[in-house]
């Protein structure tokens, strides 16, 4: 018994149920944001079923907000899809960072687990795993709980959206910019802090400049991002 305790001094959580429990903070965060997404998506003309389908298939908060915003503005599908790609490129880094913990798993297992990588589940998983090998069941538990709560919250929001009518009076239209602020602040920290601040300023100025010169330009965000990230590399 003592020997077992010693060899597993800091056991990594292993079971699906432990994963579900570890997802608690993520679920708490997804409920209001998913709800806000559902409400807003209804105002851009999506049906309740479409809201649920989007949350099931795409499963990426900021991209879904931006995508529905662009649908509402009657943007073309290629512009919506390329903006989605750019917004979600950040997952490359998270997926790369998870390789040490998951490299022992079968490829099919990792293909399924990859579907559930988000900013929030990544934060929870890496905080708990600390680079140690991860149990597939545990990660699956974290991902299933998080994804389910996102789908349910957005569908409930879509249903409520019909009842609420005009939601701008409740300030719900500010959920998206507020989420950008919440995601931006931690990104300003870390290595190359100065370069990150410069990056942010260049991106903001380029986007606003492009949109003032060409109102409604689909490509403004993509162009501003590419320019600013390049400036960041040169600056650091």
């Amino acid at each position, binding site marked *: 018994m003592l020997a077992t305790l010693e060899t597993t001094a800091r056991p990594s959580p292993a079971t699906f149920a432990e994963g579900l429990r570890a997802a608690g903070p993520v679920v708490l965060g997804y409920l209001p944001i998913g709800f806000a997404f559902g409400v807003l998506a209804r105002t851009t003309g999506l049906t309740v079923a479409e809201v649920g*389908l989007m949350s099931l298939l795409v499963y990426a908060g900021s991209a879904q907000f931006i995508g529905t915003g662009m649908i509402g503005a009657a943007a073309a599908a290629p512009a919506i899809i390329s903006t989605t790609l750019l917004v*979600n*490129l950040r997952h490359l880094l998270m997926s790369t960072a998870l390789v040490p913990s998951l490299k022992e798993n079968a490829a099919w297992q990792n293909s399924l687990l990859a579907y559930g990588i988000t900013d929030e589940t990544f934060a929870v998983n890496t905080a708990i795993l600390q680079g140690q090998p991860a149990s597939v069941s545990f990660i699956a538990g974290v991902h299933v709980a998080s994804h389910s709560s996102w789908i349910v919250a957005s569908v409930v929001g879509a249903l409520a959206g019909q009842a609420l009518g005009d939601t701008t*009076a409740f300030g719900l239209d500010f959920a*998206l910019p507020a989420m950008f602020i919440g995601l931006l602040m931690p990104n300003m920290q870390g290595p190359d802090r100065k*370069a990150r601040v410069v990056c*942010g300023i260049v991106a903001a100025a380029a986007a606003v400049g492009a949109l003032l010169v060409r*109102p409604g330009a689909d490509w403004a965000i993509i162009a501003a991002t590419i320019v600013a*990230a390049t400036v960041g590399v040169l600056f650091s």
Partner: protein
Amino acid sequence: MMTVRPAMLALFVGMALVTYLPRMLPLVVLSRFRLPPLVLKWLSFVPVSVLAALLAKELLIGKEGLALPPAHPQLLAAIPAFAVAAFTRSLMGTVLAGIAAMALLRLVL
């Protein structure tokens, strides 16, 4: 209400594909390869850039060009959201503070 338009289904599948690939490729395909350091460096600046660009658009641009308070209180509502984000690091707290500030500003202005 429960219908799914084919054009929307196609759009969602496209969005899902470009979202899934960056999540999957490093873990499944590239775990044997290594991305060049310069590419990793560039990628590390993408989140800041895309978020700042999107935020600037939301805060400053409306349907008729530049959108500033009091008609468009977004810039003012961002202040408490930034404060909560800086002090608590809580995404949910930030979103709730932003929504509450916006509702209040719409009431007052």
